[in-house]
């Protein structure tokens, strides 16, 4: 009894997610084509993502993405390490985001 409810729930979640990911993938592909006309493949495009783009995509996954002006350079440095550790971010994306935040505050 309980399980049928739960599996319905899970199916619903999975379907909704799939619908949105299909959508989001198609949009990110478009961006790839638009920006990587110099023969870069998807992988190098990932590596080329700017700090600003990464900030938009990454820092809003758990809470709203903080405004660059919210903290000073020193504070961004500490927050960057805190989030890298707590939120499981890669060293590279953290560094790029922190540089972007420090340049835009």
């Amino acid at each position, binding site marked *: 009894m*309980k399980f049928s*409810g*739960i599996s319905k*729930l*899970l199916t*619903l*979640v999975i379907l*909704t*997610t799939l619908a*949105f*990911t299909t*959508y*989001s*993938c198609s949009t*990110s592909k478009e961006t790839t084509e638009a920006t990587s006309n110099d023969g870069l493949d*998807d*992988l190098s*495009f*990932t*590596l080329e*993502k700017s700090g600003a783009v990464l900030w*938009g*995509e*990454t820092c*809003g*996954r*758990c*809470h*709203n*993405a*903080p*405004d660059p002006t*919210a903290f000073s350079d*020193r*504070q961004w*440095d*500490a*927050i960057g*390490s*805190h989030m*890298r*550790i*707590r*939120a*499981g*971010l*890669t*060293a*590279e994306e953290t560094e790029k985001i922190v540089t972007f935040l420090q340049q835009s505050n």
Partner: protein
Amino acid sequence: MGKKLLLLICTLLLSAGPLLAQTYNEEAKQDLESLKPGTSNFLARGYSHAGFQSIDGNSSFVSGQYAPILMWKQGDRILFESELEIEFEGDGVQFALEYANISYILNDYAILRVGNFLTPFGAFNDRIHPAWINKLPTAPLGMGHDPVGPTNEFGAELRGAADLGNSKFNYSLYLSNGSILSVHDEDSTSAPEVSLSGLNFEDNNNEKAIGGRFGFLPFNNSALELGVSAQYTSNIANKDFDYGKVGMLNYAFDLSFVKNSIQPIKGNIDIKAQWNQSNIDEFELVLPDGDELIFDQKSSAYYTQIAYRPSLSSSPFLSKLEFVGRYSGIDLPEASEEHGDEPETTSPKVSENGTSNSLRLKSLFTPEVVGGGEEEEVHNEGDRTQIAFGINYWISWRSVIKFSYQITDNNEDTFSGMYLHYALGF
């Protein structure tokens, strides 16, 4: 002439020493400088929430909690993080150290963390529980003050993240003291109290818990994250527990999908879901009068939440609103069928003939252990489901007014709750 030359060379050599030392000193000084408390990055942050709520007809103003967070980054590799949680509870104020740990960044892919940390079990516990992050004033059933699964560890952890082509993953692997199973009044004829606690700062046995979480972000825009977590302990009972070892296996699955500024729907979508399962080995206690108590603890909790914020709306007011819906549930061990003469349904049942008998206990995790400090509406035992709706008004990225209405169903009755909370991260 030769004498003069010799003297000159000697003078040069003698002065070169201090000069060299000075250059060396400058470097060392710079290194040291970055380690001084004034030059390392100290950050005092935190969050709080307050509001008004009406639960099942009883209304009250509440000042939830004040949670100061202190962080200290020393040099490039060391980060200390700690959180205190100060809350009004009962007649007084409860003061708890939610976590305190030290991280050492080993390289780009690995960080060593030691101390007391929030368990990376699912995502709600260590990533979503703060009042300014959680989109509803209450925690989902079984994930807040009444959790299924661990919430805090005393141990050592290796964690990190890396790219995997277009995808990314993050991981955590830890060894910790694990939970403690305590049995009180074991020698009286009355039913013993059994409780489970995560506050195991001096391990009660030599068996350590091993656990971890693996998170996978398949798309290069990081919108989707799927997580699997597990924790296993071969014994949570005391070393001298008469009835042998009691093992525990917890596992969880979590999902997060967040996409901001989607043009066709003029806004942001945020979907979260999680499933926690906790299984404790069956064990039995023999009372002095010969009766046996059999404990069989298998519990689960789950939730799914969807939020929409019309962030791209041309109306500044609408763009700050967010609509949230959440469905959550908790399944605790069922009471056995024939408990007619047992007046207290929350105490374990005595099985006369010693046959396997599923028992209903109080929730095994004590409230003190839990992160979050966000009250759940109903604290009684048994299976429950809950549906919650909320409308949030975001004043800034970390300050929000939350209004919500929720209905909890325990299969016999329904309880409703209405909340108006203000949450602030600072």
